[in-house]
């Protein structure tokens, strides 16, 4: 190999030798405040920075010119600490923050702006927060309200509901069965007289996710061990992941859960198996095209697992052409049903004619979109319903073909549940649709475009696709906070799906804060004890009962209440 080619393999972005990553010219670092230059201050965590600025003493003249500025800094740092981000450093790149962290930063910034009379609309701010930190988040929301703002929160967390002044419960079901106000009033009314509200029944304990009677036995021979994991803040820890069980990784924010699961375990497997990334789009999300790297010293027992699949909440597709049934590959079977109709055979239609993605049967005016986009020069593009097919996506000759009185467009408008009844005798179709219905997606329309699915829905569609593959054997499924966007009732369904995966020979590894999930786990690995530098160790591992009695574990304390120990 040519030397140059060889050396280029080691090229990449390296820390700037001039400023050592501090980004500033040297002159700027000659200026100090409280003994630190601005680069050193920026390297502090939000918690340390708060202490630094609180203890900063200014001379009387400096106070006169800078006290207001100092006040602003102190106030903002206090908010950032209060939303549970004390482990982030000031110079942390904003592009590397998780969705939840970014949201909470925005929340703290809004609070800093002291706007009055606004209406804040928030989407599940408790996601990614350990039960310990939810209380602080609630105080922030209350503070924002007391400034004179209206706060509208979409939320499933029990504690946030308890703190709310007013609760609106929508339902009763999902999709077509939802969209009605089941209840509107305060927490006490909801729990005393919820009027059939599903949320109310879960809150009062009338309905609940049960603690499983028995747990799966952990087989010590069936486990993968990661020795000396050192990614990010992990302190060279040895972790064993039992297989054929539901394993939950817990810990406060920043304790190293994601580092362990994503960087050590997922990347480690990929490095060992040299998988270019399981399931296309999941890997494509990662910004680096680097080969996966081993972030631990050694992996033992990796051969017990054949493939690793990360099921995350990224969208299943960015084009409106992708939809739930194309994703789980049920549409192929439906097209075959239509192509097998006598009328279709007479006209020599193949299953391909019933696709709206390839030329043949689709309406060529809108190319199967159902809509035509008109460019309006300076104004935003306008979408018009296609004049030729009237939004039905197919040529009229194709729509003539009917199965039990319905054409292919009608079928795309059905919900999963309707489809299940409609295709009753076609096992190839119902087998896959049933998977969608089982994990609580019975309300989705078959042709609903992927762009309109929520993150939680997308994740569950992916889950169904994996279940459909039916080769769960020796597969490790990794989920990062699968309860995002899920109501108590949906969590029960998700847990049922997990059981199914394990029953067919798979293993499930989950990062989760939700106590309902943690208490049903077979094995819990609690990281911490604190976030950032104070974390990265295993506080306790074992069954939920064993974790609950561990004094040092924050998770344990909350688990005790959930398990009623």
């Amino acid at each position, binding site marked *: 190999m040519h030397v140059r080619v060889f050396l280029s*393999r*080691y*090229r*990449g972005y*390296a820390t*700037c*030798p*001039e400023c050592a990553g501090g*980004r*500033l*010219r040297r*002159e700027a670092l*000659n*200026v100090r405040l409280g003994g630190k230059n601005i680069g050193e201050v920026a390297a502090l965590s939000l918690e340390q920075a708060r202490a630094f600025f609180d203890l900063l003493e200014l001379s009387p003249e*400096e106070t006169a010119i800078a006290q207001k*500025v*100092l006040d602003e*800094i102190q106030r903002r740092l206090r908010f*950032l600490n209060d939303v549970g981000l004390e482990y982030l*450093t*000031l110079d*942390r*790149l*904003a*592009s590397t*923050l998780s969705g939840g962290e*970014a*949201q909470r930063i925005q*929340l703290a910034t*809004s609070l*800093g702006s002291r706007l009055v009379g606004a209406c804040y*609309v*928030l*989407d*599940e701010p408790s996601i990614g927060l350990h039960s310990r930190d939810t209380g602080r988040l609630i105080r922030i929301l209350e503070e924002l*309200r007391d400034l004179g703002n*209206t*706060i*509208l*929160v*979409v*939320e499933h967390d029990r504690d946030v509901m308890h703190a*709310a*002044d*007013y609760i*609106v419960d*929508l*339902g009763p079901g999902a*999709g077509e069965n*939802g*969209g*009605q*106000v089941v209840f*509107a009033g305060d927490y006490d009314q909801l729990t005393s007289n919820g009027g059939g509200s*599903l949320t109310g029944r879960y809150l009062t304990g009338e309905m609940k996710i049960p603690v499983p009677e028995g747990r799966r036995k952990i087989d010590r021979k069936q486990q993968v061990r990661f020795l000396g994991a*050192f990614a990010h803040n992990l302190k060279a820890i040895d972790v064993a992941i039992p297989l054929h069980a539901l394993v939950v990784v817990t810990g406060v924010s920043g304790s190293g859960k994601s580092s362990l699961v994503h960087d050590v375990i997922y990347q480690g497997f990929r490095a060992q198996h040299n998988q270019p990334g399981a399931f296309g789009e999941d890997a494509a999300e990662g910004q680096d095209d680097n080969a996966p790297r081993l972030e631990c010293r050694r992996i033992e027992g990796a051969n017990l697992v054949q493939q690793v699949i990360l099921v995350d909440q990224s969208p299943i597709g960015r084009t409106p052409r992708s939809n739930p049934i194309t994703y789980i590959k049920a549409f192929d079977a439906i097209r075959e049903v239509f192509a097998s109709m006598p009328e279709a055979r007479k006209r020599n239609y193949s299953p391909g004619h019933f696709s709206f993605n390839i030329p043949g049967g689709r309406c060529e005016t809108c190319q199967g979109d159902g809509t035509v986009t008109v460019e309006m020069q300076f104004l935003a593009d306008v979408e018009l319903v296609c004049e030729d097919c009237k939004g039905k996506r197919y040529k009229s000759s194709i729509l003539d073909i009917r199965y039990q009185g319905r054409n292919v467009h009608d079928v795309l408008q059905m919900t999963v549940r309707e489809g299940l009844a409609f295709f009753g005798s076609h096992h190839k179709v119902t087998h896959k649709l049933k998977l969608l219905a089982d994990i609580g997606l019975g*309300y989705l329309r078959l042709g609903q475009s992927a762009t309109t699915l*929520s*993150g939680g*829905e997308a994740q569950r569609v992916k889950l169904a696709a994996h279940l459909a593959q039916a080769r769960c054997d020796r597969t490790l499924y990794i989920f990062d906070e699968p309860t995002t966007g899920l109501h108590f009732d949906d969590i029960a369904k998700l847990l049922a799906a997990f059981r199914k995966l394990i029953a067919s020979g798979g293993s499930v590894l989950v990062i989760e804060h939700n106590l309902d999930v943690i208490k049903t786990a077979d094995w819990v690995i609690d990281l911490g004890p604190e976030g950032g530098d104070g974390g990265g160790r295993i506080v306790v591992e074992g069954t939920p009962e064993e974790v609950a009695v561990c004094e040092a574990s924050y998770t344990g304390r909350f688990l005790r209440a959930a398990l009623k120990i």
Partner: protein
Amino acid sequence: MSQEYLEIRGARVHNLKNVHLRLPHNRLIVITGVSGSGKSSLAFDTVYAEGQRRYVESMSAYARQFLERITKPDVDEIEGIAPPIAIRQKNTTRNPRSTVATATEVYDFMRLLFARAGRTFCSRCGARVKKDSVDEVAAQILALPAGSRWYVLFPIATPASKDRLFDLRKKGFNRLFQQGRTFEFSTPESLLEIDFSKPLFVLADRIAIGGDLRQRVVDTVESCYREAGEALFQSAESEALELRCSEKFECKTCRIGYEEPEPRLFSFNSPFGACPKCQGFGNVMDYDLSRVIPDPTLTLEHGAIEPWTKPAYRKFLERLKRTAAGKVRFAAPYRELTPAEREIVMREVQRFFE
């Protein structure tokens, strides 16, 4: 607020079934329900979308054309809507310059604080860099031992032009000063003895500490600053004893001038503050340490430096072993090496890549 409720009538966005709802203002309101029950449709696609739309409508037609035209949500009426702010679970930042500090505006205030209240220190000797204000100088001089006598001088650039000397004389400065000797303009022949290759000063004043001297010192220092930007107090008793003060922002010992801190000096997004090598990114295209040393738990001996494990390049490791024998522990994992040891290794790696 005049209206106490946000009132929604006949919302039919997505799956909402003609929803009527009154939500109290200035309250914490939770919207809940099973997944897909229409929570987001109500909060984001109805309340937020309508508020946003009205806000945009209120702008001038010119401004509106740049904003995406927002379609009206399918709702009969929304009353008492406040300007909405959506805070979503999404990290949309892709900019490599954005950090937690800049995103929260903390950095903007930090820049201001460092510019106003930061203290500059000389990069060579570490002494405080500051301007000497006339008042500070006066206070310092008045604190000197009473009765001590001082020459107040300011330098003139050598070789001094004839014009400059005439000019000074016209302004009323009558004496020049060099190495303890004074030369008077009134006796021109004495000026011939001045050594113009050496620093030359103008004697602005002679003072003895004591009494009400303040105004005089202030006047003198001001005129020194006006002429030369600095003033020198030299003891009449001992030539070595001197006090320099300057209105310039410089290190008084090393005489290195510094720029006065301004907020932009601390901004890595401004050419005034950004590191000239990396333009404020903090990274440069170079060899990537994490690829050169993929596994820091390995020892140097066992191939911590990945490229040197190849037979063709083993000689570099051998060379390092010779040159750094005793200075670097070859049997310890790389991650346990001290910064000093790492520096020796890195110097060799650097050479390898050049």
